[in-house]
């Protein structure tokens, strides 16, 4: 009996702790990992987030000169890995969590980027924005190394490798000659 009274006391003194949810807004904790949002203006379309995404909610597709990056919230586990790996902070995790929708389209975000052609072989290999980003990031670094160094940025990885091995072979031959 004593314990039942104790329990009763707890019930009365502690009171109600629940929220009437849709009416009362529950406080959102600081730093909640909620809906990730892609910002088209900042995004360079490098695909780092696509590689890092554990559930493949982010997918990338290159087709005829256009790169499409698709984010499907239905598959997103809100882990925030994409935010961590983004080199330009174009994908951010926000505290929004009420994503229920009747349309599948509402849960999709699609970005499209123009692809750049390799100057040597003419195949598409990366987006124009990635090249711009690389140029601006490394312009200081490559200063004074001559034009061909900057030119190399516009080559696809395969051509770049070929180019480099030629350069190296030349250097090697020269060294032996001397």
């Amino acid at each position, binding site marked *: 009996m004593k314990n039942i009274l104790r329990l009763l006391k*707890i019930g009365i003194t502690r009171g109600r702790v629940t929220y009437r949810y849709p009416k009362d807004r529950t406080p959102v904790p600081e730093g*909640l990992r909620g809906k990730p949002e892609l910002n088209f203006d900042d995004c360079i379309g490098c695909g780092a987030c696509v590689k890092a995404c554990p559930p493949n909610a982010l997918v990338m597709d290159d087709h005829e000169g256009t790169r499409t990056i698709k984010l499907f919230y239905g598959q997103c586990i809100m882990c925030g890995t994409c935010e961590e790996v983004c080199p330009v902070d174009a994908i951010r995790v926000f505290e929004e969590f009420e994503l229920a929708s009747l349309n599948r389209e509402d849960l999709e975000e699609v970005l499209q980027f123009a692809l750049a052609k390799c100057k040597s072989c003419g195949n598409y290999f990366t987006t124009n924005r990635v090249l711009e980003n690389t140029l601006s990031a490394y312009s200081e670094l490559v200063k004074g190394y001559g034009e061909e160094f900057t030119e190399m940025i516009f080559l696809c990885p395969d051509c770049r490798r070929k180019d480099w091995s030629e350069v190296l072979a030349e250097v090697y031959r020269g060294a032996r000659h001397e």
Partner: protein
Amino acid sequence: MLYTEVLHDLIHPTWPNGTTSLHYSHYPIFRQLVSMYDRDFARGVPKCKVQAIGGIEILRDGLSTFINSVDTIIPNEWYELNEITMDIITKIRSKFPDNVIKVTELREKTHLMEIKKADLPQILDYAHNSLGGHFMTMTGTDYIESLDHFIIDYVLGWYEEGVLVVFRARIRKGDENFPSVTQYVPCADWYEREVKESLGLNPIGHPNPRKLLLSDEWPEDIYPLRKNFKHDTRPPYKAEPRYPFEAPENGKMFNIIPFGPYHFAIHEPIYFRFLTNGERIVNTDLRAGFNYRGLEKIAETRLTYETIPFMAERVCGICGSVHAEAYTQALEKAAKFEAPERAKWIRTVMLEIERVHSHLLWLGVASHMVGFDSGLMQFWRVRDKDMFLAELLTGNRKLYGMIVPGGVRRDIRADKKEKALKLVSEIHEEYEELLRATLNLGTLKKRLKDVGCLRKEDAKKYSVMGPVARASGISIDSRRDYPYEAYPHLDFESPVEPGGDVLARTIVRAHDVLQSIKIIEQALESLPDGPVHTPLDYIPPGVTSVGLVEGPRGTDVHYIITGKEDTVYRWRVRAPTYANLQATPLMLEGYTLADASIIIGSIDPCISCAERVLVVDANSGKERILSSKDLLKR
């Protein structure tokens, strides 16, 4: 295969010109072999009459290769083993001098013992029943493509000594069976059935070789965990599936009471089939695996080391961090990596927060199961404070995404630490107040006492884990016995109760919460400074590693074999419920149907879900099972 063939096949192409791909220097037996080969080669024809060689491990193609074929065994040189481990290993070795092929030290107090598959039952019988080894996990791994064989590993642990031994046997291609150990070690039952259906390795002499995890519609000859099975394959459904439930003995009248798969008293789908005599449960049959999600397959084929922790967290809805931690621990052990100190302490805080909310959830649910709903409401009210604590530190109530290989993802700032400590003391105060009122309730005590007893011998035999074992008087706790993260620096006890009934399990859990609160307070107060994350640089391939974490339900065991290109070759999750659930039929026997839900509930089952329903036609008394096709039609 004779040793000469072995040498020609494997070693000769690279030896003696280039030895870079062979890591043989550690293996005396390999040296012995090489010297024999040298001697014979010098004589002209390598046909020395050596009868056998055993246990040569060569790293070829980045995977451990085991060549221990042959007729008899050369005495091996033994490694200087740790004194305690030595004891267990020498005991086994002196008992079976001719059967143990080789012992390798994987890391301190963890050993890999290679044995022949024919010797499995007697060696495991001795290790489990005579030496008191706790059955941790068992796995099978497919090495068909690279090495033409399978390996099966039985992992036994000795909590008191803090020792782990992996018993490994090879199964050659074409002879895909092995002697079952279930008749001696009853807890191996499910593991061997799982190996049977997922890899097609047949345990001969298994008393109960029915399906376990895959659905009844799954065809017999397709094995999902073999490496040649693509993760997105959809095999054709078998027509008219049927699960062979245990039938009552002839001539005896029993009632069959189905319980599940969706039953309001058990919160996840599992199907119990009680044979009852009046109200008393005489026998229990059980069908599990209603939602086998194939996480391990996805991890092995599609995910990388860095992304698996997120999947591991989703193995369980309650103890997510425990799984992430167990996986991370196994990986870090394989890489011989130590996380930064601060990260270790934060991980400890996360694990304990999870234990508090899991136990409070269970106390609430258990109260509800016995009709004590104010208990449910009040325990859950206190639990919510713990959820706020988690929110404060990680941003989320569940699925914290905190524990990753290399450390943790978020630091605990000084201001958050103050708030957290305040919350912890509030939880402490409110919980103690509530515990005083509820645990002493006479009606509750009477309802739980002497219900669902599990004797100590049975608990040992079935290798139950965590609170279930501790409530049967077995003092095991991997936080204390296999120390990890910050636990060696913390002061705590793990409560043990001798009763073995549901009341004992309740008391163990209730006291566990107090210990966890104590740990959180200590860990937060003495959080060391420093970085919270340093990346792992290199993870060697082909390393076997076992991570043990004391989850709220018991020891969670993750077994991994590392692979090439940033992926695991094999990942096996053994959640504690897997061990505890096997012992439930024992607990249920002799009790009434009304007790069934609280007995099943008392192990805090954490099962995962379903796709089919059993329908009994009342007129004909015939049973019919609806397949997914039928369900879609309606």
